[in-house]
């Protein structure tokens, strides 16, 4: 087990290096010049060159990469061009804000989808199955930003129950799900974030439970006198490796891919930050955000791999 874990961890190092290269390259490929955005239209070419040198943007690309990588290693992601603040602090702050809504969304979606999926698989073809399938398909097909606008119209505009945008005064440092003043800001983003993964995971849970229930060993379990509840426990454990993989994937998407939802709700998370960095061509900020998100994605997958191998003994051998 430990050997397997150690090997998996070592294997992530080249992946992370690849991530840094791609992060670095992506931004170079993108059109537009950040220096031009900083300067007033009347500035001279010499001013531009001076500023370029000050940010190190006049160096050859490989040199820029290694300088950047060296700083990244010690946690320095540079200064944001737009705000002139350290990128590291800004990204981590936004990251924590995103975690506040992403983690609970994905856990909520996971738990509900497990219950839905199991019920649907057991009642396959019945009305309950059809209702759950309808909810799942709705979750998969509805664009989250549209759903976001709709819930805002209902709960913020018409009913005035919930605030339409923002995160409230506490920020991620003091955020509590049990304090209404904080939580009311998170409800609508959580709904908008949770619905798509809920749909996808319900569908996959349903099909994997159905697949497990068709396997021979389930008949053995019944033949030895286990109740249906005990059979479900076996079935759930058997779908766990797949379910955990799905969970990791969805968490990765929500941490990085919630640009639309966070923008709709002006939730100050990584998605919102990415949007801002792109619009202002703030290269260090963009690079830093993408790097943190990609690293988080890689690490989540590492955890998923290790969790899977703990659940399924057959995976450890390979």
């Amino acid at each position, binding site marked *: 087990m430990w050997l397997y874990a150690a090997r998996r961890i070592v294997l992530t190092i080249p992946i992370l290096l690849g991530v840094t290269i791609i992060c670095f390259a992506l931004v170079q490929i993108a059109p537009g010049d950040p220096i031009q955005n900083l300067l007033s239209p009347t500035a001279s070419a010499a001013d531009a060159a001076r500023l370029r040198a000050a940010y190190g943007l006049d160096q050859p690309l490989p040199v820029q990469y290694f300088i950047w990588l060296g700083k990244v290693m010690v946690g320095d992601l540079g200064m944001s061009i737009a705000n002139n603040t350290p990128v590291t602090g800004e990204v981590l702050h936004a990251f924590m804000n995103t975690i506040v809504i992403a983690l609970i969304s994905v856990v909520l979606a996971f738990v509900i989808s497990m219950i839905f999926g199991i019920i649907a698989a057991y009642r396959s073809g019945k009305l309950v199955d059809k209702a759950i399938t309808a909810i799942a398909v709705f979750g998969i097909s509805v664009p989250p930003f549209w759903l976001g606008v709709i819930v805002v119209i209902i709960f913020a505009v018409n009913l005035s129950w919930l605030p339409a945008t923002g995160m409230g005064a506490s920020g991620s440092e003091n955020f509590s799900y049990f304090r209404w003043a904080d939580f009311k800001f998170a409800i609508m983003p959580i709904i908008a974030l949770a619905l798509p993964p809920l749909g996808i995971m319900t569908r996959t849970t349903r099909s994997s439970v159905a697949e497990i229930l068709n*396997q*021979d*060993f389930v*008949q*053995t*379990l*019944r*033949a*030895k*006198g*286990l*109740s249906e509840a*005990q059979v479900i426990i*076996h079935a759930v*454990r*058997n779908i766990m490796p797949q379910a955990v993989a799905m969970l990791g994937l969805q968490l990765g998407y929500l941490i990085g891919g919630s640009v639309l939802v966070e923008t709709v709700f002006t939730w100050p998370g990584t998605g919102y930050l990415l949007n801002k960095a792109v619009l202002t061509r703030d290269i260090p900020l963009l690079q830093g955000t993408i790097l943190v998100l990609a690293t988080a994605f890689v690490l989540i997958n590492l955890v998923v791999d290790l969790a899977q191998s703990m*659940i*399924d*003994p*057959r995976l450890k051998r390979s």
Partner: protein
Amino acid sequence: MNDMTAPDFTLATPQTEPFVRVEDLRVKFVSRDATVRAVNGISFDLERGKVLCVIGESGSGKSVMMRSLLRLHPKNRTVIEGTMRVGDHDIAGVSDRAMIDLRGSLISMVFQEPMTALDPLYTVGDQIAETVRRHEGVSKEAAWARALELLDLVRVPSPERRLKAYPHELSGGLRQRVVIAMALSCRPSLLLADEPTTALDASVQIQILVLLRKIQREMGMSMIFVTHDLGVAAQIADQVAVMYAGRIIEYGEARDVLLSPQHPYTQAMLASTAKDQDRDVPLEAIAGNPPDLRALPDGCSFAPRCKYAGPDCTLTMPPPITDAWGHMARCFKVGIGPAGKLRFDAKIAEPV
């Protein structure tokens, strides 16, 4: 003798009723597209401590009959009619909850495919102990101790180590021993073995067969053993039932059925097995295919493939004809011979 091999009931007074009685069992699978009549009126008795071998082609309803005795079929798509009694229990009539309690304790089952019959994510010990705890409510330690005892009983080498093994770490033969150990864990009175040796290597088959026979005798269990291997049947059976299209078409003492088969189907089946023939003599295969269970023809189901069949064989199902030794066959051309024994005679005319 240890407690495993001395069930109390062997000391009881002789039974007036057989231990297992199945009467006119019918099983249908109903779906939107078709109704499959898998079992069409099976009746048999089985004494305590005896082995009944059920022989038949794939699709003759052998496995369906076995699963019916445990009520393992999906409830919403299956119609089971007839009576099944095991000991004092009315299998067809008890509640679902009571049936769950009987599974694994009164009746257990060993399946055909040891590679897939065990949960891949649980250790062998967990799976055996789970069964013990389910029925006997003992502590975890006691259940594991019992699991160890059981692995020892089914001759698994170094059982302590094997208890902590996962199914994928064991060979097919060892897995089948584990499945058997699990089936025996709560001292069942009736063991259903559904082709337990079919998926195994030839040398392992014999070992498993000998083991099952030995344990069955020691524990005084009744056993229903499904196979399509006549050699296996000859090894293990007290009685033999030959199934075709969901019916028992010949039944009797193993010796009678296997040595002097009277039903044309049994005769043809025995003729199509390789025994002492010379190399160049081709085996006699039975022409045609088993009938479609979605649309069973009237009359004798074997008639379309039977070389003796007359035009009227397809009108009604032949009734069972039984001789004084309990040898039964369902064929219009079978009668009671001069010695009082069941005898096939192609000249007997089918009723009009």
